[in-house]
């Protein structure tokens, strides 16, 4: 008895050979080969037992855990929010956000949690965290625009309903990372051809809306005194790092962009009007629509996981990184504007620039265990600067 025979017997038993010549041959073999027939009987009995065990497992059901539901709901909400057109109808006279979300007014709306980013107009567009914004009462029908519209303006009340803001923040970022790293290779292969629509959605993200941190993997071995370099880079929005992974080619958008090559992080100051439109997408109706006053610097460096320094591979995964950022946010609240897969004093480390919700910024160095269960942020160093 061999593998092949056992598997053929299994096929025969399971009906996979029904109607084929192989079925006929197997039937003949079983009729003439007692050893095979005996083996077949054993297999049938054992399969029955295994199937019964599977039945026992099938009876153990578990609904989706609440935290997973929250995470996925928030991810969808962020996606809906990002895709939603007309969120920032240029009605405001030069304001970055026509309807600043009520900073800190948690629970003031029926939609997903908000971060009070727009309370800081100078830094709002640096939002390292995608904010699931609420625009209570400001979205009349007039906000619906035909131009470039794929999504209605109704925020995902259904899917954003009860998500705590911290969850939305973390998961939203996860979506961003996910999108960057091109991992949605699931069945539909939708990622490659539609990534642009998420990253450079039809709507220029206005200040305080979804943004992405500058994501680098310079491999730099930082020391305390060199940490400000990353902060400066994040601040300048430059990606001068020689080994930066960024692929700015992913930022088409022609004349809509304000020349500044840097995506993500800090980018334009409020009101400057950086506008990244989805001109790469056939769905984008009007590449010239970038004249809106949204101030978001969008666009996201894409990352090649292969360039992540050894020891940090885990953190290159979207959820791991999102968990890490959440862990970092606990002691260092604010928006992460840059993430560098690098090292610190010779050890693999993720270096993050956190723009505080108040004035100032912090450079935080975390180890490979950042965000892992029980590890917290695995913080190695932090410096104001």
């Amino acid at each position, binding site marked *: 008895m061999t*593998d092949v025979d056992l598997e053929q017997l299994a096929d025969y038993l399971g009906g996979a050979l029904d*109607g084929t010549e192989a079925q006929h041959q197997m039937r003949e073999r079983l009729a003439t080969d007692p050893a095979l027939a005996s083996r077949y009987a054993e297999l049938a009995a*054992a*399969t029955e*037992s295994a199937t019964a065990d599977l039945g026992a497992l099938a009876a153990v059901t578990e609904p989706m855990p609440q935290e997973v539901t929250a995470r996925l709901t928030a991810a969808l909400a962020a996606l809906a929010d990002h895709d939603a057109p007309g969120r920032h109808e240029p009605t405001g006279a030069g304001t970055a956000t026509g309807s600043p979300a009520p900073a800190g007014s948690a629970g003031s709306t029926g939609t997903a949690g908000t971060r009070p980013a727009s309370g800081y107009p100078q830094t709002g567009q640096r939002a390292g965290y995608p904010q699931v914004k609420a625009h209570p009462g400001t979205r009349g029908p007039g906000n619906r625009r035909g131009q470039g519209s794929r999504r209605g303006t109704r925020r995902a009340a259904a899917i954003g309903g009860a998500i705590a803001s911290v969850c939305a923040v973390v998961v939203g970022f996860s979506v961003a990372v996910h999108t960057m790293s091109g991992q949605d290779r699931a*069945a539909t292969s939708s990622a490659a051809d539609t990534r642009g629509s998420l990253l450079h959605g039809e709507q220029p993200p206005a200040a305080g809306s979804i943004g992405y941190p500058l994501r680098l993997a310079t491999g730099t071995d930082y020391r305390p005194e060199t940490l400000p370099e990353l902060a400066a880079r994040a601040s300048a929005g430059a990606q001068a790092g020689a080994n930066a992974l960024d692929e700015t080619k992913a930022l088409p958008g022609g004349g809509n962009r304000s020349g500044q090559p840097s995506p993500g992080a800090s980018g334009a100051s409020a009101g400057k009007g950086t506008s990244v439109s989805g001109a790469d997408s056939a769905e984008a109706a009007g590449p010239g629509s970038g004249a809106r006053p949204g101030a978001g610097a969008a666009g996201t460096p894409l990352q090649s996981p292969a360039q992540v320094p050894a020891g940090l591979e885990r953190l290159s995964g979207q959820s791991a990184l999102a968990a890490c950022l959440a862990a970092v946010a606990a002691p260092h609240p604010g928006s992460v504007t840059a993430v560098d897969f690098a090292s610190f004093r010779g050890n693999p480390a993720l270096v993050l620039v956190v723009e505080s919700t108040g004035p100032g910024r912090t450079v935080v160095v975390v180890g490979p265990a950042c965000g892992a269960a029980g590890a917290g942020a695995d913080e190695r160093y932090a410096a104001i600067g």
Partner: protein
Amino acid sequence: MSGAPADQDARSDQELLAAHVAGDTTAFGELFERHRDRLWALALRTIGDREEAADALQDALISAYRAAARFRGESAVGTWMYRIVVNACLDRMRRRRARPTVPLSEVEPVTAAMAAAEPDHDTAMMVTAALEQLPPEQRAALVLVDLEGYPVAEAAAVLGVAQGTVKSRCARGRARLAVLLGYLRNRGDADGVSTASRPGTTRTEGCG
């Protein structure tokens, strides 16, 4: 802002998907709500790890969200969603599965190790551990058919393969499971030497 509750949506799955494509930002969330627990069960059982299951689901939902316009209605919306989820799981499983599939004749039961490691183990735990030893394709098929109760035809639609292939994967998966669970002794060492090392034997799925 519409305050309409989303949990009472009377629209069909297909109508919801169409509404989503047309710009209704609540529609996809409703679809997710509707299929949520089944999607979770499918992902968790297929991939066997909660974190990975959540990651795979997120991948899948984002893909589905954005690929909705390409849904042609050739299958039920649920089937389409499950397919995306299963593929996202398989994708992850293949990526992390560095070692090749052990030939069936060399499979060792997991029961003894399990009993040593988990004195209080129950059947479900043992079957779960055994399932993790199956090749991803066999496992996905078994999860769909034997755990989730899909008819073979629907499992075939979800997996995107012929029904005979589903039957074969299930049958071989059960046989492997039977060995892993100690119900079937392996005689591969008796006379299977010549074929035990034959590559690809466990991946031969063709069945007419």
